[in-house]
C-alpha cells in the first residue's frame, strides 16, 4: 500500500426520515458495510463519509448538494435516491463537475439527452426492470396483460419500458393516484377484465398496500403478478406470504449465485440482521466502485474530471455483486436483467432466479446521449 496522499471525502445523500427512509437506510447500510470491509479507506486513502438526509424532498436535495459541494468540498457524491430529488440535484452536479454515483434513480433524461460525463448510475437505468418484465411476459406467451402504476413520471416510464418488449396490445393501463392507499376499486376493475397476467409498478408503501390487497382479494396464485420495484427486500418482511408467487424484473437479487454476492448477503445479514435489498446492493457496489476508481486515479483523485474518468473505466474492473458490469457511453450500467420469483417469503432464502431476461442490456436512451 502506497503513501497516503489525501483524505477522500464522500457525500452520501438519501432519505433517512419519512416513508422513504427504508430505501435510504438500505443504501446507507450497504455503503457502510463496504466501507467497513475496506477499513474506512477508499483506494487505500483514508476516507470520510458525510451522510445527509434529503427527506425525499427535491428542494432539500438541491440545498444539500450545494452544501456538500461548496462547504464540505466533497470529492464525490453517492446516493441521490429518488427521481425527483435526483433531478433537482442535477444542475449543481453538472455545473460543478463533481462525480456523482446514483444508487437508485436514473431517469430517461439523465440517460439520454441530459447525460453528463460525471453522472453515473451503479444501480440501473429506471426502465430496465420493466423492460425485463416485459420481455419475460412476452416470451411467456401471455396475451391479456393488465397494467397498473401511480400517475407520475416514473409510472409512465415503467409502462413505456414494459411495452418496449411486450409486443401484444395490453388490456388496460390504469394510473392510480399518488399516495392512494386503497386499491380495492382498481383490483375490482382488474378482476372484471379477466387478464392472464398483471404488471404493476408500485414502489414503497404503495407496493405493500397493493400486494396485500391483491392477495386479500384472493388473486394471489390465480393471476400471475409481474412487477418492477414493487416487491423487494424492503417490502418482503411486511408482505410475507402475500408476496408468494410474485415475479419481479430486476438486475440483482439476494439469491444470485456468485461469490461476491454470497459473501455480501452473508455479511449483510450478519451485521444488520435482515436480507439486503437491491438498494443495499447498489450502495455496496458504489463504495467498491469508488474504491477501485480512487485507486486508479492515484494522487489525481482530487481532480474531478480525472476521478470521473477513473470511475468510468473502473466500472469494467470492480467486482459487482450482481456479476457482469460495465458502464455504457451514457454512464448507465450494461448488465443482465433477470426475472426473480418469490417462492416462500418467510424462508431464509425467499426468492429464486427464474430466468435471464435481458443479457448485457443497454438502456434505450444511450443513443440520445452525445457522450462516447
Amino acid at each position, binding site marked *: 500500500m502506497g503513501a497516503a496522499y489525501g483524505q477522500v471525502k464522500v457525500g452520501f445523500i438519501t432519505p433517512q426520515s419519512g416513508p422513504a427512509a427504508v430505501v435510504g437506510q438500505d443504501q446507507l447500510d450497504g455503503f457502510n458495510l463496504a466501507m467497513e470491509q475496506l477499513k474506512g479507506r477508499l483506494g487505500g486513502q483514508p476516507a470520510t463519509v458525510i451522510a445527509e438526509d434529503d427527506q425525499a424532498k427535491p428542494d432539500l436535495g438541491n440545498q444539500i448538494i450545494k452544501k456538500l459541494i461548496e462547504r464540505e468540498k466533497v470529492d464525490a457524491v453517492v446516493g441521490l435516491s429518488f427521481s425527483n430529488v435526483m433531478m433537482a440535484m442535477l444542475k449543481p452536479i453538472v455545473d460543478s463537475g463533481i462525480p456523482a454515483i446514483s444508487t437508485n434513480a436514473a431517469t430517461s433524461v439523465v440517460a439520454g439527452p441530459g447525460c453528463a460525463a460525471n453522472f453515473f448510475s451503479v444501480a440501473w437505468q429506471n426502465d430496465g426492470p420493466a423492460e425485463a418484465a416485459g420481455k419475460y411476459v412476452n416470451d411467456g406467451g401471455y396475451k391479456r396483460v393488465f397494467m397498473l402504476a401511480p*400517475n407520475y413520471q416514473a409510472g409512465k416510464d415503467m409502462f413505456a419500458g414494459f411495452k418496449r418488449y411486450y409486443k401484444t396490445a395490453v388490456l388496460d393501463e390504469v394510473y392510480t393516484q399518488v399516495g392512494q392507499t386503497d386499491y380495492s*376499486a382498481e383490483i375490482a376493475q382488474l378482476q372484471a377484465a379477466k387478464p392472464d397476467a398483471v404488471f404493476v409498478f408500485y414502489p414503497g408503501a404503495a407496493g405493500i398496500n397493493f400486494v396485500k390487497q391483491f392477495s386479500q382479494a*384472493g388473486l394471489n396464485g390465480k393471476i400471475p403478478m409481474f412487477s418492477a420495484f414493487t416487491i423487494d427486500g424492503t417490502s418482503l418482511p*411486511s408482505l410475507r406470504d402475500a408476496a408468494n408467487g410474485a415475479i419481479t424484473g430486476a438486475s440483482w437479487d439476494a439469491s444470485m449465485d456468485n461469490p461476491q454476492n454470497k459473501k455480501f448477503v452473508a455479511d449483510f445479514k450478519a451485521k444488520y440482521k435482515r436480507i439486503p435489498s437491491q438498494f443495499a446492493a447498489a450502495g455496496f457496489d458504489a463504495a467498491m466502485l469508488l474504491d477501485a476508481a480512487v485507486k486508479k486515479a492515484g494522487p489525481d483523485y482530487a481532480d474531478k474530471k480525472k476521478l470521473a474518468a477513473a470511475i468510468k473505466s473502473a466500472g469494467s474492473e470492480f467486482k459487482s455483486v450482481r456479476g457482469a458490469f460495465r458502464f455504457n457511453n451514457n454512464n448507465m450500467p450494461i448488465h443482465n436483467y433477470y426475472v426473480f420469483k418469490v417462492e416462500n417469503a418467510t424462508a431464509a432464502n425467499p426468492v429464486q432466479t427464474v430466468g435471464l431476461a435481458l443479457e448485457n442490456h443497454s438502456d434505450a436512451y444511450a443513443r440520445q446521449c452525445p457522450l462516447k
Partner: protein
Amino acid sequence: MTAITLIPQLLNGLQYGMLLFLLAAGLTLVLGIMSYVNLAHGSLYMVGAYCAAVVFDHTGSFLLAVAGAVAGAAMAGALIEQLIASRLYQRDHVEHVLASFGMVLLLNELARTVWGPQPLFLTVPKALGGTIDIFGIQYSAYRFAIVVLGLAVLVGSHYLIHGTRAGMLVRAGASNPRMVGALGINIKVLNGALFTFGAALAGLAGGIAAPIVSVQLGMGENILILTLVVIVVGGIGSIKGSFYGALIVGLIDTLGRSFLPLILRETMNRELANAAGPALASMLVYVVMAVILAFRPKGLFPARG
C-alpha cells in the same frame, strides 16, 4: 359499466368511507365540541396501526392487536391532551395548528426511533380471510366486516352522545362550558375523556386498516387530508355529518377512480383519456367539496344550525 363492476365498486366505496368515518368521527367531535384543531389525528392513527402490528407480532391474535391499537392510541391521546391540548382550548385555531404540526414531527420521529424505518407486518385474520356472497358477487369478508364495524360505531356513538348522561354532558359542555362547570361537573375531565375517546377511534381505524395497508412512518398524513375533507363536507361537530360526509367522499373517490377514465375514453382518444383521467379523478373529491362548500359553507349537517 355493468352491474358486475358497479356493485363491488359501490361496496368498495362504502368500505373506504367507513374507514374515513372512524377517523372523521374522532376528529369532528374534538373540533366541534372543544373547538380544537387536531392535525395530529393522523399520527394517532399511525400510533394505533403500529401498536396493532407490535401486539400481533407478540400474540398472533388479531383481536388483541386491535385492542392494543385502541389502547395505545387512547393513551397517546390522553397524554397529548393533558400536556398540550388542554392548555390551548381557549386559544386561537392557528395555535392549535402550530402545536399539532409540532406533534406530527415529534411522533413521526419517535416512531422511527422506536420501530425503525421498515414497514411493519400485520395480516387479515384467518376467520375473515375469505369472501362472502353479496347479490351473487364474491366480496372480501374482511372489508365487509369493516362496513359492519363502521355502522356499529355510528349507532354506538349516536347512543353515547344522545342517550347517555355522559353524552348529554358533552353536548352541554359544547354549548356552555361555564354553566356546566358551575353545575359541579369537572369540564376538564370531560374534555380529557372526549379527546381520549377521539384518539381511541383513530387508533381503532389504524388497527382495522393495518392488515390492508402499509404500516409505516407518515401513514397518517395522506389520510388526514381526506379526513379533513370529510368533516368539512359533513359539517363540523356532527357525527351524523361525518358519516354521510365519509360515505360521499368514499363513494366519489372510489367510483371516480374506476369510472372516470372509462367515461373519458368514450369522448376523447385513449392517449388523452389516459393522461387526463387519473388527474381528474384525483381532483374530483376536492372539486366536489368546493362545490358543496359553495352552496353550504357549513357543510351538509352542521352541528349548530
